[in-house]
């Protein structure tokens, strides 16, 4: 019995469910205690002991059915596999009854019935006849693959494998223009939720600590006395006044033009997930024109929103993107009602299509913003080629980051939030900013000042253009 459980556990692990050795011991103990009284109860026992997350349950049920149905299928086949199986079955005879399908139909309601009925005896018969006609059919190989796992030849992967296979680590750059209209898959959304919820967890924990450490002010005399009443007024426990603290605000400008659509797509999803979690986010999208989409993000399913944007209903996508125009329009329409010194994030490649740069607007934005961050999906090798103005614009920003994967994106946003919360954001005072820049000149990470003079006044280096 232990052997079967171990094999089953390794099958679970192969499929990405994390099961600890302690849990498989629990499963064996539970089976010994409750005894084996049929398939349904065994499934429940194993599920109780091995599965600790509701999201894993459907996968577990599917695997359970696959694993314990295979016996029957293979026994009826006359080949080497069947003989091997028969040997194992006779060894662990106590388990063979699990292959019986009777009563399976009442097993569970919901999607489980579907799984069960998919593998009812008729289907198996059909499957078998299929393999007889064409042994090279995919069904055949599937059985072979399953057999391999079942004999325990393939090692269970380390649990971390699941995370390296995370679909979000796929480079954003891989998706190209032709995939433009593809909606977010469920996996992408789930993976994003996972990334964000992990991030939130880390953040919230640290925020709380910072909140406790930093946001405390003077002694609150009355509360301290109240708190120490039972200690005979000896102040063992102190109560401190709290400083007021605002919810951090973000203003995000997201380029939806053709050249960066693959990155903006994930940025939108991140915004959507972040929105209202703990932040006050105002989001804008732009191409040549700029529009606020905060309301839409809050109220629309993300796929619908992406679709609407892709159709060009919100901003015209056929125009060439122009950052200069966007900054002007942003100043005209929105800059006045930016409140509470938000952090300002721009996602874009700074390719201005040789339009007016209008970088002076950034100066005004910076006076209003607590922190400025530019995100670009482009490698810095190509920054100086063509119409890219990132060196000019970048001088106004506290930081310019390259984001290529969703992991990058979430890391950058997390760092930013920590900066805002921890009050470690650099002061906006320009002189001090430039001094700081001077001091950090030799920091190789500080790539945005390449091509900019020694930091006195941000000037546009025409070499970027002449190289074209």
């Amino acid at each position, binding site marked *: 019995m232990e052997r079967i459980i171990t094999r089953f556990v390794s099958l679970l692990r192969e499929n990405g469910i994390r099961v600890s050795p302690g849990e498989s011991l*629990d499963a064996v103990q539970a089976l010994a205690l409750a005894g084996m009284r049929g398939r349904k109860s065994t499934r429940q026992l194993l599920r109780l002991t091995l599965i600790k997350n509701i999201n894993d349950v459907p996968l577990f049920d599917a695997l359970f059915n696959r694993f314990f149905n295979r016996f029957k299928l293979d026994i009826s086949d006359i080949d080497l596999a069947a003989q091997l199986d028969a040997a194992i079955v006779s060894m662990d005879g106590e388990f063979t009854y699990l292959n019986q399908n009777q009563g399976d139909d009442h097993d569970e309601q919901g999607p489980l019935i579907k799984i069960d009925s998919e593998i009812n005896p008729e289907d198996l018969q059909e499957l078998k006849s299929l393999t007889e006609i064409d042994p090279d059919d995919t069904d055949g190989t599937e059985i072979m693959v399953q057999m391999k796992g079942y004999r325990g030849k393939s090692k269970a992967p380390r649990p971390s494998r699941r995370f390296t296979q995370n679909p979000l680590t796929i480079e954003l750059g891989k998706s190209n223009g032709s995939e433009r209209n593809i909606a977010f898959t469920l996996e992408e959304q789930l993976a994003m939720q996972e990334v964000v919820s992990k991030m939130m967890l880390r953040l919230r924990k640290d925020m709380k600590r910072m909140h406790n450490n930093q946001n405390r002010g003077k002694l609150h005399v009355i509360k301290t006395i109240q708190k120490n009443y039972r200690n005979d007024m000896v102040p063992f426990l102190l109560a401190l006044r709290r400083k007021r603290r605002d919810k951090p605000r973000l203003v995000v400008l997201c380029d939806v033009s053709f050249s960066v659509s693959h990155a903006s797509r994930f940025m939108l999803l991140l915004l959507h997930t972040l929105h209202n979690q703990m932040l006050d986010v105002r989001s804008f999208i732009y191409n040549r024109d700029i529009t606020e989409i905060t309301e839409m993000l809050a109220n629309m399913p993300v796929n619908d929103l992406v679709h609407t944007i892709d159709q060009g209903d919100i901003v015209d996508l056929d125009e060439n993107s122009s950052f200069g125009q966007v900054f002007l329009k942003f100043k005209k329409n929105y800059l006045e009602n930016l409140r509470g010194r938000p952090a300002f994030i721009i996602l874009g490649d700074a390719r201005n299509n040789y339009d007016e740069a209008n970088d002076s607007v950034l100066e005004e934005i910076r006076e209003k913003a607590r922190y400025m961050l530019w995100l670009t999906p482009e490698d810095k090798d190509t920054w100086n080629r063509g119409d890219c103005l990132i060196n000019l614009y970048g001088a106004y920003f506290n930081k310019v980051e390259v984001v290529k994967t969703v992991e990058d994106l979430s890391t950058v946003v997390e760092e930013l939030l920590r900066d805002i919360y921890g009050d470690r954001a650099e002061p906006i005072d320009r002189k001090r900013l430039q001094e700081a820049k001077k001091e950090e000149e030799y920091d190789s990470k500080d790539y945005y000042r390449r091509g900019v003079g020694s930091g006195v006044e941000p000037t546009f280096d025409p070499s970027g253009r002449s190289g074209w």
Partner: protein
Amino acid sequence: MITEQAVKDFLRSAGYIADDAIATAVFLAIQMEKPILIEGPPGVGKTGLAKALSSSLDFPLVRLQCYEGIDEGKALYDWEYGKQLLYTQLLRTQLDSYLSVSTDLREAVERLASEESLFFSQNFLVQRPVLRSFMSDKRSLLLIDEIDRADDEFEALLLEALSEFQISIPELGVIAAKRKPLTILTSNGTRMISDALRRRCLYLYIGYPELEREVAIVRVKFPALCEELAHQMVTFLKKARELNLRKPPSVSETLDWAEVLSILKTKQLTSEVVANTVGTIAKHQTDLQKVTDLALQELG
């Protein structure tokens, strides 16, 4: 030796209708002396299960309601500072005479230090829920309610208690449970519970019950309600749950509604009845409209 059927029966006697998964989980928790972690939407009877178990097994219920900022002083144990101070005040004369024997300060401190354990003894220990359930002479039921509301530091604090059934108190050493309590943790899933905690527990997900079980629950709680009506209202609520409401009606709403209907002496469910009592099943303004619309559509 109890069986799962026995579990079902004694839960039924306490007015709780369990399905197979619940019965198996309870049975295993009793046999294996492992905590159960129950997750599920609010109002499906997670806490109710603990209460029913406590009354039917005659285990005294020790409840620990978690909240943000709960710490070991509130959950495990605490020192009774006031009592300690009071004792030192009252014993001052004795202390004086006791210490007057010593000739110099060093000796006095040593003498006092040798009696330190007096002031950190069980006598001055306040038992908070977890310790109380461990020290109970009778096997108790420890309910750690809504663990997801507590911080993750607190979760880590519980790990020792839940896996070893012991508490380490620096001044006293390790205190092991006299009788291992039957432990139930509930979570509404507002926060992911750490894998470390999950690993130490049996995991039970209680979702919305299937039709027959929910009808049975209503019938047990309100025997006066006729079966046909119970069936009708449960069917209606099942449809309402699929409406994508902000707060889908759960079993507790079903029971509230059943109570309202039995007070109103309703015989037949009509859209008018639903419209009049919709406040018991829908808890948001947008939901109210959706549910009344459904009633018009379904019941005419």
